[in-house]
């Protein structure tokens, strides 16, 4: 009895760890899906991955655990973050669904799928856990190496090819060949004149208001903000802080304060 029990149950320590970290992992995953901003999703995912790494270790896959941390969390997630930065940190896509019924279908499928999977696992009577004790006896890394360089050597070689191809592909995709020489200042100026675009240099941001940060549009005489004064990138990302109306607010506050002072002065005269 007890021997059999031992066969498919684990130490309470692991159990504890599982329940705690598992919950966190699930939460992280959910956050990954539901966070508005891509950056946050990325961070949550990173967290989940680290937890997974821990689980690998717990399952006796020491090498994988380490690789998970180094490759995934270290390299891949950072790559993600780079791209997010490239595309725009706050490029949050509204979670409002455009395709009719997509979300509900998705959730329904997801739910059903999950239940079915669990059901499948459930009625697959998996009670035989004969542990990795003797598999890892010669050390986990050695064991993997033995397999990779004997049984899976071809697959291994092919993955090498795959990686190279991927690297080259990435370069090809992202690299843009400059076909014509860069335009000189003079040419640009003449072009501007020809196309009759904004001949003088663009107005500086925040000049006409009391701010002068780059992300604040300068105000036109009528108090409205002028997009022109902010650089394109910020405009694309929609990261313009509009202060046109808090300027007015400040003015109001000023007048009030002055009135108060004046009022106090009247009392003083009585």
């Amino acid at each position, binding site marked *: 009895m007890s021997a059999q029990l031992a066969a498919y149950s684990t130490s309470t320590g692991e159990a504890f760890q599982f329940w705690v970290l598992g919950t966190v992992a699930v939460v992280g995953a959910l956050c990954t899906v539901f966070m508005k901003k891509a950056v946050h999703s990325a961070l949550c995912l990173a967290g989940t991955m680290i937890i997974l790494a821990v689980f690998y270790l717990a399952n006796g896959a020491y090498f994988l655990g380490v690789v998970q941390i180094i490759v995934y969390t270290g390299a891949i997630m950072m790559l993600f973050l780079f791209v997010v930065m490239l595309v725009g940190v706050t490029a949050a896509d509204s979670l409002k669904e455009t395709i009719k019924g997509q979300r509900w279908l998705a959730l329904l499928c997801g739910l059903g799928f999950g239940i079915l999977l669990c059901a499948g696992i459930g*009625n697959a009577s998996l009670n035989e856990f004969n542990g990795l004790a003797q598999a890892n006896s010669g050390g986990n890394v050695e064991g993997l190496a033995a397999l990779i360089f004997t049984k899976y050597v071809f697959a291994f070689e092919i993955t090498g090819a795959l990686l190279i191809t991927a690297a080259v592909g990435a370069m090809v995709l992202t690299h843009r060949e400059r076909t014509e020489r860069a335009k000189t200042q003079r040419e640009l100026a003449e072009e501007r004149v020809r196309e009759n675009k904004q001949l003088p240099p663009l107005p500086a941001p925040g000049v006409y208001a009391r701010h002068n940060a780059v992300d604040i549009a300068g105000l036109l005489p009528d108090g409205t903000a002028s997009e022109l004064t902010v650089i394109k990138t910020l405009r694309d990302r929609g990261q313009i802080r509009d202060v046109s109306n808090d300027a007015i607010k400040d003015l109001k506050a000023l007048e009030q304060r002055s009135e108060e002072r004046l009022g106090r002065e009247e009392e003083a005269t009585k």
Partner: protein
Amino acid sequence: MENLIALLVAAPLLGAAVLLCGGRRLDAVGHVIGTVLAAVSFVIGAILFADMLGKDEEHRAIAQHLFSWIPVEGFQADVAFQLDQLSMTFVLLITGVGSLIHLYSIGYMEHDERRRRFFGYLNLFLAAMLLLVLADNYLLLYVGWEGVGLASYLLIGFWQHKPSAATAAKKAFLVNRVGDMGLSIAIMLMFTTFGTFAFGPVLESTGETSEGTLTAIGLMLLLAACGKSAQVPLQSWLGDAMEGPTPVSALIHAATMVTAGVYLIVRSGEIFNAAPDAQLATTVVGAVTLLFGAIVGCAKDDIKKALAGSTMSQIGYMILAAGLGPIGYVFAIMHLVTHGFFKAGLFLGAGSVMHGMNDEVDMRKYGGLRKYMPVTFVTFGLGYLAIIGFPGLSGFFSKDKIIEAAFAKGGTEGWILGSVALLGAAITAYYMTRVMLLTFFGEERWRNQPTASPADPSVEPAAEHQGAHAEPHPHESPRSMTIPMIVLAFGSVFAGAFFGIGDRFMHWLEPVTEHAHGHPPIGATTVTLSTVAVMVIGVGAAYLQYGRRPVPVVAPRGSLLTRAARRDLLQDDFNHVVLVRGGEHLTRSLVYVDHTLVDGVVNGTAASMGGFSGRLRKLQNGYARSYAVSMFGGAAILIAATLLMRAV
């Protein structure tokens, strides 16, 4: 000797092959080759005949087995010939009269640029007919049977540029096909009943099967005979067949085609003997046709059509006789032979008359021709006397015997048939006299009025050489045409006496068609006398009507019967309304059905599919994610399925 039989067929067949495949380079000699080969076949026939006379009655029949034609499990058809007295009679008639007609055609078709082909067809006709009478099983007979149909098709439609000719040819073939259907069904019945269709086994073992089967076979054979021999109800093609050149008409009517039916019935005598109902039907058909043809013959003003009507009724006599069973077979064949002579003579005469009259066929535009074409007059006259059964001439002997036999059938049937036959004899006398008077006597109605030349000047190229539109200059025909007429005239005068006196012919045929002497309720002499009497009456009536009074050039409206008879007693109209129209409607509606219904169903499904897919296309909104959803759902379903499978 046996080996000669095949040559009988081979000679004309070779001729046909050579002439039809030879091409233009044979145009010069084509007619000679054709005639010679026909004659060759006649000579062979004569040799075999002499040989046959040399033997004693029992061993006269000879046979020749060439090769096994269709050997299939349980189904053996051979190409084998048998030559007995019956076949021999036909062989001589066919080749003899046939050769004469070939000879005649040399002159008649002289000015037709397609004369070579014409002779090719004639040879084909002979070959087919010989095959028909020489075959030793029904299937091979069937080949000849259809071959005759083909040859008649080609010859009737020889002047194909005339739509009427083409139509007539087609009609002849189709009507014959209906008959052929009967023959093929009869053969199938024989096969299922006897397991074979060779004459010998079938006819010997008629006793071993039920009468019903035999009746069925007999009726089917009768249907076939009706088709070929132009008996009611399949007679309609014969009249139109006159579209062909006159020698063709002579060949069809006298020697070959129409006699085939009689041959078939006489040959299958045993079957009919064992099936009284079939016999009765045969006699009825014969009697009806006999009157039908005679009545039609009375009304026609077209000389050839009048003769066609007479053929119909004469064949009616033969079928009637054949239907009488053993008492009639011999006379049927005998009348067939004599009829072969005088009818051929009459047709050739008519041809010669037309030849002299710019191919005018309306007898009302003839008249008084005797002094212009004496030879034609004499031969035609002899033929005329023979057919009306003038005592002493051939027609007299044969027809008289048939009438006797009809009475001898006994009972009311006997009386009815006999009297019908007598009536027929009277009418025959009447219309033949009419033809004779209209053509050769009376004032010359063709003078001082242009002959109604055919609408299409290219019609009947034989006429082109003599100014087709001018007033005709009746003249005697060339030697090549008159000689055959003379020979045939001899035949029609003496054949009857030669056969009839001492029952020579009867004894000759008896071994094949075992003859039974019938005992007419009234004495033979009475019958003979009455025959002569009715003949005289008929002649008299005709004389009173056409000999005394002048004949109007334009036919009077005539009585209802006359008008009906001019239209072949409305038989064609019936066919047209019922068969042709009905058929047209049927086919047209079927075409519609095929296009809308059968095809429509399919196209309909296709269309609905199209609509469905169009609706389905909406799902393909191009959003990768919605595709992904369907994938995901599919995966879910798959898992569900696997789980279910495992659960079950």
